[in-house]
């Protein structure tokens, strides 16, 4: 008997072998309920593959949905660049690869568009485009959660893209986190952390020596305990909800706060698929911060807080679905799409409300203990209460740096006189009160004339009170305390400051008085003789009233100096006098808002300068003999130009009245809008 042998399969065999599975698939995919089809399949069968087969074999009748979104068009402009258009907006852009961190594969079809810094598209200089499908709903859900939490996250938009006249499908568009983004959206003192864990040096105004306590680089900048717990917990929750290992690796980057030295992690949408862990300075420190028991408890509390509002979140996600699903469905059967969307939403909500921190982030570890500050032995004699140091009438020589424990208040009663040794500072981590009178002021003076002392600096918590009355101060400079810059002879960070009847004379630092992130009210004071700036306010709400700014006899670098400088602040200036300043009297920048009422500007180099999205309203003021009266300019394109509103003012004998660039504008009015007055806590008629 001869041995059998397999031949080439004949045509009938192929026909039947192909037809039978095809019919089986046709029946399975046309009859299977959609909710079953989109649920978990056994044996590791992936959803993507199931959907591909559904597309091929599902022949049941049904409605097909298609929706509309804003259309972005990209066309070559003939100079090796592209033109991006959306409604009325248009920009010349360059397409580059979407940058992702080491272990991530960029999504197929994703790209980055960059604009020149001086011609942004809708305020953005870099836009990331990632192709969108139904899975992108999770990105939109996460964006909604991020918007409700205390974490910085660029907005995500769903658009329809057209390239060269052809539809390219739906895309998610998000502004890339760049220094320009940080400039526009973050606090003044924030700086983007580089991939190597370093930040750009602070753009200090002067090179004055000042005082230094501790070192700026006490250990590495990127350390777990430096991460802001609130933002870290928020990002941790999003990491768990989206199951994103790239965020664990710090893919979105982080910002460094030069005021508090805290590091704030950032959030952005997924740019691709993470293939493994990547090691970087940010990722190591961020994982360290996330793994502490304090952060993990915060994540659990955040999830609990969101869960308490679960019905509202479900409704919010449904609203996102109704807007985005028709666009993302790409004409697919509505029943299937609905089943898939329901499943996606339920899974996201489950992960959001019950974050698996232990399994996804790792087991919790003990948070490192922060060392506490002990009271200087010399100060013990002034301790009248457990948390108060009181200096009564008398002379006190401060001959070494004093750093006070948290919560310890200092009171200088009338007639108290501090004589500060050269290069010596006092740093308070609690309240400061000076209770001088006209007859018995509080004096802060240098021990040696011409040799500046450092700074009296207050680190507050946002509600820390500083009440200074009847103070006469001079001879200070500024301070670097453990890497934080206190840029004035008097420096207040996150404090509620009230100053009245004070005289502030010769100072050698960046400014005589510096306030950041707090409230500030100054009245009936006189500021004179600063070598550099007079009053420097950043992210401050408040007022400066009936205060005189006098001409210093010395000084240099006049272009950068100003009498009253505001950045991202909201300040009422009323009844003040700015006389003979060889620089700018009032400077508003970084989207500040200022209302200048009944003030006098005479003989200054520039009376008012408004920059970068700032808005200044001027009413009832007198401008006499100034070289320039109003200068409006845009230095940072992403922040836009400045706006000046003029009401009833008197201008006499000035040089140039207006110097306004194309991005800025001057408007005229008859009376100040009562709504604006209310924002400065004033009534109509004042």
């Amino acid at each position, binding site marked *: 008997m001869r041995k*059998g*042998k*397999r031949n080439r399969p004949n045509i009938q065999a192929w026909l039947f*072998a192909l037809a039978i599975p095809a019919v089986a698939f046709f029946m399975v995919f046309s009859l299977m309920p959609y909710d079953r089809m989109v649920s978990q399949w056994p044996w*590791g069968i992936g959803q993507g*593959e199931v959907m591909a087969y559904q597309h091929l074999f599902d022949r049941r009748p049904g409605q097909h949905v298609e929706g509309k979104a804003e259309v972005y068009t990209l066309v070559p402009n003939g100079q090796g660049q592209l033109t991006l258009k959306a409604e009325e907006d248009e920009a010349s852009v360059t397409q580059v690869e979407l940058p992702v961190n080491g272990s991530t594969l960029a999504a197929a079809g994703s790209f980055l568009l960059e604009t020149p810094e001086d011609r942004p598209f809708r305020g953005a200089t870099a836009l990331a485009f990632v192709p969108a499908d139904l899975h992108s709903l999770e990105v939109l859900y996460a964006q909604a959660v991020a918007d409700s939490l205390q974490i910085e996250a660029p907005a995500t938009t769903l658009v329809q893209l057209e390239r060269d006249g052809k539809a390219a499908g739906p895309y998610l568009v998000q502004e890339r986190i760049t220094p320009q983004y940080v400039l526009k959206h973050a606090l003044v003192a924030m700086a983007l952390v580089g991939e190597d864990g370093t930040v750009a040096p602070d753009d200090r105004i002067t090179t004055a020596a000042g005082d230094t306590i501790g070192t700026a680089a006490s250990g590495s900048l990127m350390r777990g305990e430096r991460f802001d717990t609130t933002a870290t917990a928020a990002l941790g929750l999003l990491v768990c909800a989206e199951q994103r290992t790239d965020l664990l690796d710090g893919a979105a980057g982080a910002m460094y706060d030069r005021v508090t030295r805290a590091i704030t992690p950032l959030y952005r949408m997924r740019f691709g698929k993470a*293939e493994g862990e990547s090691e970087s300075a940010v990722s190591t420190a961020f994982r360290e911060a996330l793994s502490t028991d304090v952060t993990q408890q915060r994540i659990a509390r955040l999830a609990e807080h969101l869960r308490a509002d679960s019905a509202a979140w479900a409704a919010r996600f449904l609203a996102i679905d109704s807007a985005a699903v028709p666009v993302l469905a790409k004409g697919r059967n509505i029943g299937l799409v609905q089943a898939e969307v329901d499943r996606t939403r339920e899974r996201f909500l489950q992960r959001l409300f019950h974050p698996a921190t232990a399994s996804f982030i790792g087991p919790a570890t003990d948070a490192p203990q922060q060392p506490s500050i002990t009271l200087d032995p010399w100060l013990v004699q002034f301790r009248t209460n457990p948390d108060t140091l009181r200096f009564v009438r008398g002379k006190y020589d401060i001959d070494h740096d004093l750093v006070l424990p948290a919560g310890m208040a200092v009171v200088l009663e009338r007639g108290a006189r501090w004589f500060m040794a050269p290069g010596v500072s006092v740093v308070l981590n609690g309240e400061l009160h000076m209770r001088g009178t006209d007859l018995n002021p509080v004096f802060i003076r240098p021990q040696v004339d011409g040799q500046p002392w450092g700074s009296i600096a207050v680190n507050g918590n946002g509600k820390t009170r500083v009440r200074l009355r009847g103070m006469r101060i001079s001879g200070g400079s500024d301070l670097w305390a453990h890497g934080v810059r206190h840029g004035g002879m008097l420096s207040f960070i996150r404090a509620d400051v009230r100053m009245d009847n004070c005289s502030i004379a010769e100072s050698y630092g960046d400014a005589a008085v510096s306030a950041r992130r707090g409230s500030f009210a100054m009245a009936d004071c006189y500021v004179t003789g600063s070598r550099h700036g007079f009053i420097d306010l950043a992210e401050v709400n408040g007022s400066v009233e009936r205060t005189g700014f006098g001409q210093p006899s010395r000084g240099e670098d006049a272009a950068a100096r100003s009498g009253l400088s505001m950045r991202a602040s909201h300040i009422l200036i009323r009844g003040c006098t700015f006389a003979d300043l060889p620089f700018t009297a009032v400077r508003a920048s970084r989207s500040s808002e200022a209302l200048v009422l009944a003030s006098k500007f005479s003989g200054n180099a520039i009376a008012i300068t408004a920059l970068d999205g700032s808005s200044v309203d001027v009413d009832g003021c007198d401008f006499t003999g100034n070289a320039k009266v109003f200068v409006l300019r845009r230095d940072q394109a992403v922040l836009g130009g400045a706006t000046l509103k003029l009401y009833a003012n008197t201008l006499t004998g000035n040089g140039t009245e207006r110097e306004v660039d194309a991005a800025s504008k001057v408007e005229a009015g008859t009376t100040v809008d009562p709504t604006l007055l209310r924002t400065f806590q004033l009534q109509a008629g004042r």
Partner: protein
Amino acid sequence: MGLNFAVMRERIGQWSHLIPEGTGDIVVLLVQLFIALTLIGWAYNRGFRPTERGPVVRLPLLTLAFGLSLLVRHIHSELWQPIMIAAAMIIAGLFDRSGNGRGMGIPLMIIASLLGLGFVLSALALTAVAVLVYMFSPVSKR
């Protein structure tokens, strides 16, 4: 005496962390290949006289297919992945030139590649097609 499942789960939990991560997925992959090979092997053997039939599960073929799917699963290079698959096809084609005529190496290598790439449903479809082709195609008796 009834079984105490809580204690069993606890014991399993104590030991399970010793198993390397991803072991479960690899076992599932092996089982999938084993089932595919069994089905194809059974269909392939049909038509031969009982004395001419080979083993239903051919161990060298299973080893080669498992190796291929592991490589495809873990190496994501756009260059090396197709090279590996093509090489496996050529080797399987050479093995197939046995006394029984066309063997089942090539379809199994394709199935192994699909499983390695995570296309389980496609591997299932191809297994069904291969089984049916072998069942419907005659074996010439000499």
